[in-house]
């Protein structure tokens, strides 16, 4: 396993900053300047602070339990509409290993199983096959959308696969987990960019191949960590290895480090580059700050994402 020990002083300073940003409600806001708690930064923070000696992880977990929607999903932020959305998969992962959160987690998992891209419906499948063909994709291969009544996209699909992959058994109404995961994986293969890697999910539009994004590619590769021999995965890894040293923003670099570590690629120079970014503690985006911490502690981060090492 090619994980590296990064400068512990850098990591502990970032963890301390992350802990400082925790709101009285237990959650974290998306931006340091905001006081509106949100689920995404809270989940990343909970994942990274899981065994760190700073921050109040239990308060964060309680916050997640309190904000769950009646239908089992999670809102993007507490005041949000109650229909639920893509952050449900993150919440399910953040509550892993907590016996007292099992019922909430199971509700979340059942909701994820009922949640699918609109192209899973026969009517939209037909429309995409006949009338709406400017974006090239196979509507038989569907995953998860960002929120209800829209089509599947790469990032919510990859997060949902990671969350469902953590389920230990296919019992109690979870018999369809394997087939949903497989359909999601096929969707990821289908939506890859022709030159390798992924963007949001539009590989070819109007006959033109679109460029991949490092972070979307990395998140897809995390979800495909047990498909290393597949040619689409291999070309995604090659793209990410090529682009990672050029990344000039910490979020994309952090995701790239996690994905390349999951695929057994050398990451020491990338970790050093990430730790050397100026003013990491003053990153305005709290999700990015938490992701940097995760990337600097890859082994625990990959365990949290359920990635087999």
């Amino acid at each position: 396993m090619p994980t590296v020990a990064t400068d512990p002083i850098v990591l502990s300073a970032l963890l301390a900053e992350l802990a400082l940003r925790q709101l009285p409600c237990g959650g974290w806001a998306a931006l340091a300047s905001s006081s509106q708690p949100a689920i995404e930064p809270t989940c990343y923070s909970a994942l990274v602070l899981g065994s760190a000696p700073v921050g109040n992880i239990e308060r964060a977990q309680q916050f997640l339990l309190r904000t769950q929607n009646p239908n089992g999903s999670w809102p993007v932020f507490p005041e949000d509409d109650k229909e639920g959305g893509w952050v449900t998969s993150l919440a399910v992962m953040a509550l892993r290993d907590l016996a007292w959160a099992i019922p909430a987690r199971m509700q979340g998992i059942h909701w994820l199983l009922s949640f699918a891209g609109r192209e899973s419906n026969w009517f939209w499948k037909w429309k995409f096959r006949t009338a709406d063909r400017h974006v090239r994709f196979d509507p038989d291969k569907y995953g998860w959308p960002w929120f209800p009544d829209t089509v599947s996209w790469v990032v919510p699909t990859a997060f949902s696969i990671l969350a469902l992959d953590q389920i230990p058994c296919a019992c109690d109404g979870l018999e369809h987990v394997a087939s949903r995961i497989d359909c999601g994986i096929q969707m990821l293969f289908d939506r890859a960019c022709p030159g390798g890697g992924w963007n949001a999910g539009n590989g070819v539009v109007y006959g033109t191949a679109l460029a991949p994004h490092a972070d979307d590619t990395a998140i897809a590769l995390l979800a495909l960590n047990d498909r290393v021999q597949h040619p689409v995965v291999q070309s995604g890894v090659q793209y990410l290895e090529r682009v990672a040293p050029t990344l000039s923003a910490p979020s994309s670099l952090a995701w790239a480090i996690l994905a390349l570590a999951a695929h057994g690629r050398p990451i020491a120079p990338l970790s050093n580059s990430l730790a050397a970014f100026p003013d990491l503690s003053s990153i305005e985006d709290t999700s990015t700050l938490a992701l940097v911490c995760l990337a600097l502690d890859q082994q625990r981060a990959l365990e949290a994402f359920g990635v087999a090492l």
Partner: protein
Amino acid sequence: MSLTRRDFLAGSAALAAGATVTAPFLLPKYHSDQRRKRSRVAVLDSQRYSQQLDQIVFSGLRLFPIDVRGKTVVLKPNLVDYIPGNAINTHPLLVLAAAESFRRLGAKSVLVAEGPGHQRDTQLVLSQSGNAQALRDERIRFVDLNRDQLIRTPLRASYTGIKDLWLPRTVLEADFLVSMPKIKTHHWSGVTLSLKNMFGVVPGARYGWPKNILHWKGIQESILDLCATVPIHFVIADGIVAMEGNGPLNGTPRPMGKIVLADDPVAADATCARLMGFEPDRIVHIREGSRFLGNSALERLDQVGETVNAPATPFGVVPEFEHLRSF
């Protein structure tokens, strides 16, 4: 012919039923007419991105009776994604020139805000497009609208049927919002100018990347609902190097040498469309927007600066939008 009470009641019932069926199609879909009596547009010549933009933009703004003293000015450029060699994003030197000009005009604060629609890593777009360094050097605050604090906001038009959207506080609380689009063709909406640029205020963290709800509800309809709800006070459009063809990402750079300033986004977009060789009334959101958001008709525009001449060759478009060309 005598009319019995029974005939009268039956006729009234028929009229009422007819009105119930047809009213939704006849009633306007906007809450209020926001058009000013006349709108002002300035087309400025500028052949390249240089430090001279400071003076060009400042002189251009002086052609308008705007007062930003003591106000919070939010500049909303078009930052979507970065592909080397493609003219996708509003150029950082134009953003800086605008910021500097509004500071000179007495703004209390000037900040730049955007929520990229393709690239989730906003800092990466900022960095690769040259905006991060430029904003840092000039100490201009940037707000990531994809992750800003959100406020549930009822929409002030009903083209999409959406009742409300969660929108970023920074934009809703701005005293003076400046849309700074890159002049481009767009494979879904024909053009992307100051009105379409407002898709960037819809938060990705809530609605995803791309902002798929707006596509499902209709791009032209979504533009109208958004712009009715979040008023654009001024436009500075980057047409120094524009984009034609398969925009907004993979089109071809098209040197145009123009900056378009306007106190009305519909007037700005109609003017940009004419400069691109398009008939503004053939662009759905400009045509419909001219009924309540602003003016597109030449007789209601005060044109200052350079003359608006159609180009010798209209901008290239994908086949679905060939009909936009005015010749």
